[in-house]
């Protein structure tokens, strides 16, 4: 009894404290919630509504593609301050691209890698490129023993150099694993990516046995003056953050009949590019007259990228 008696006079004071506690908790809760959603408030949409609602590349009409390219050009102007032209060159009938590389001539200067970096508007701080040149031990094809970060005068005695980029496989593992069909093979042999359809799951990156795919961890940073304005929707336009990209045989150049940037940059002429369906082409001559091989043939990927030694 005495306890109840004791408590009764205290009741109003207890209610006041409870109210205070509730108020404090509510204030703290609101503050915590506000803090928790602060990143959302700071979030600026990186994809426009039109970009978000855009359908798969293969479902688009020519007119829609034109509008999309115009929108992307405007976005590039707004975000990078650069005037660019984004085209969508189509694969040609009777053309099947292939590449060959003479390992006896390659000196490992990485000029191809640099040309790719510039041509394809790669992120400047990370020095990204679709080409990785591996310094190999002579007499070995063991990629595990190769070195990509060599930093000494080349060519070094006892080594040869193996540039690796997308092999444009006819039986491409990367295409098979894509859950949303954001990457596919075109009829001229080039495996392309629709950067606006890619969800960034990176399955393709894991599936590629040639380590040819790259992920955009962040939005590429390229100074306006360095942006290559000659761009293609499926090739070197500036990629959004969170999507996968890869070598596309410079399709914005090669589908116009020009040579890829890496070939033009090669100071030794180790690279041969052309139309596999043209029996008079340089690439056909190489395949018919040199002892060509492909990387990891046993995987059955059927690459369109061939290597050969002169001797």
């Amino acid at each position, binding site marked *: 009894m005495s306890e109840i008696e004791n408590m009764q006079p205290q009741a109003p004071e207890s209610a006041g404290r409870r109210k205070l506690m509730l108020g404090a908790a509510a204030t703290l809760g609101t503050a915590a919630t506000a803090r928790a959603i602060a990143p959302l408030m700071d979030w600026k949409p990186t994809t426009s509504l039109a970009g978000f609602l855009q359908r798969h590349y293969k479902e688009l009409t020519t007119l829609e593609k034109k509008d999309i390219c115009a929108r992307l050009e405007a976005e590039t102007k707004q975000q990078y301050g650069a005037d660019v032209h984004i085209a969508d060159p189509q694969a040609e009938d009777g053309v099947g691209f292939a590449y060959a590389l003479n390992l006896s001539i390659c000196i490992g200067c990485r000029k191809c890698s640099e040309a790719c970096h510039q041509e394809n508007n790669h992120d400047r701080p990370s020095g990204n490129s679709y080409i990785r040149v591996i310094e190999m031990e002579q007499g070995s094809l063991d990629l595990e023993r190769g070195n990509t970060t060599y930093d000494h005068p080349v060519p070094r005695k006892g080594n040869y150099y193996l540039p690796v980029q997308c092999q444009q496989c006819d039986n491409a593992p990367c295409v098979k694993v894509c859950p949303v069909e954001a990457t596919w093979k075109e009829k001229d042999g080039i495996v392309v990516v629709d950067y606006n359809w890619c969800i960034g799951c990176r399955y393709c990156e894991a599936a590629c046995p040639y380590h040819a795919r790259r992920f955009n961890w962040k939005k590429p940073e390229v100074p306006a003056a360095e942006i290559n304005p000659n761009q293609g929707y499926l090739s070197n336009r500036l990629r959004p953050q969170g999507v996968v990209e890869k070598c596309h045989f410079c399709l914005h150049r090669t589908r116009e009949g020009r040579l890829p940037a890496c070939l033009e940059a090669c100071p030794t002429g180790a690279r*041969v590019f052309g139309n596999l369906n043209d029996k008079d082409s340089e690439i056909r001559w190489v395949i018919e007259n040199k002892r060509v091989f492909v990387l990891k043939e046993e995987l059955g990927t059927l690459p369109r990228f061939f290597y050969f030694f*002169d001797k």
Partner: protein
Amino acid sequence: MEPKAKNRIPWQQIGSVAAVAFLGLGMAAAVARGATDAAQQPVSAKKMAERHATVIHVKPDVGTLDTGRRGPQGQVISAPCGSCHKQHSTPPYARKAEDLKEFHAGFRFKHGNIACGACHDLQDRDQLRLADDRRISMSSVIDLCSQCHGPQARDYAHGAHGGMNGYWDLRRGDRVRNVCVDCHNPHVPAYPQFAPVQRPRDRFLEAEAAAGGHHE
């Protein structure tokens, strides 16, 4: 098109030049397949008409020598060989680089065991001399090199040596081919060592470098 001086050669002439070069070779056996291919399969004239030119680049300083002097803007002053050799009586051709005196003293030469006169015309030093004693201009140097370097000439004729710029599709545009001396110093032809560019940078490699470099 680069603003450099160009020697315009239609595509079909490259085939014939290559064929002539091959037929003149003593090492026909080694390149028999390439040579007969080039000689027996001329691309039809009709097809040629549809094609753009393949232009062989002419190195602007070919046939000249750096005098060691520099112009007011620091530009290299080079002179054609004949500007000295035609002016006054010149000593007989040296056989070896070590025999060169005066102006050419200290000349670096590392190209087999051949004498100066194997390539240079003894009378007119602005010209080159083929093994069959025909004289050719400095810009036709491919014919000279092809005499010994048959496999390279064969590969070059098929677009698999020497590099190019322009169009893979000659129906749509021109192509510019490098010439031997664009890449090879004829007197020291081995490709020199130099520092590579564009070292790859990524988070794994940077971490690896910080931890003491590559695992090898």
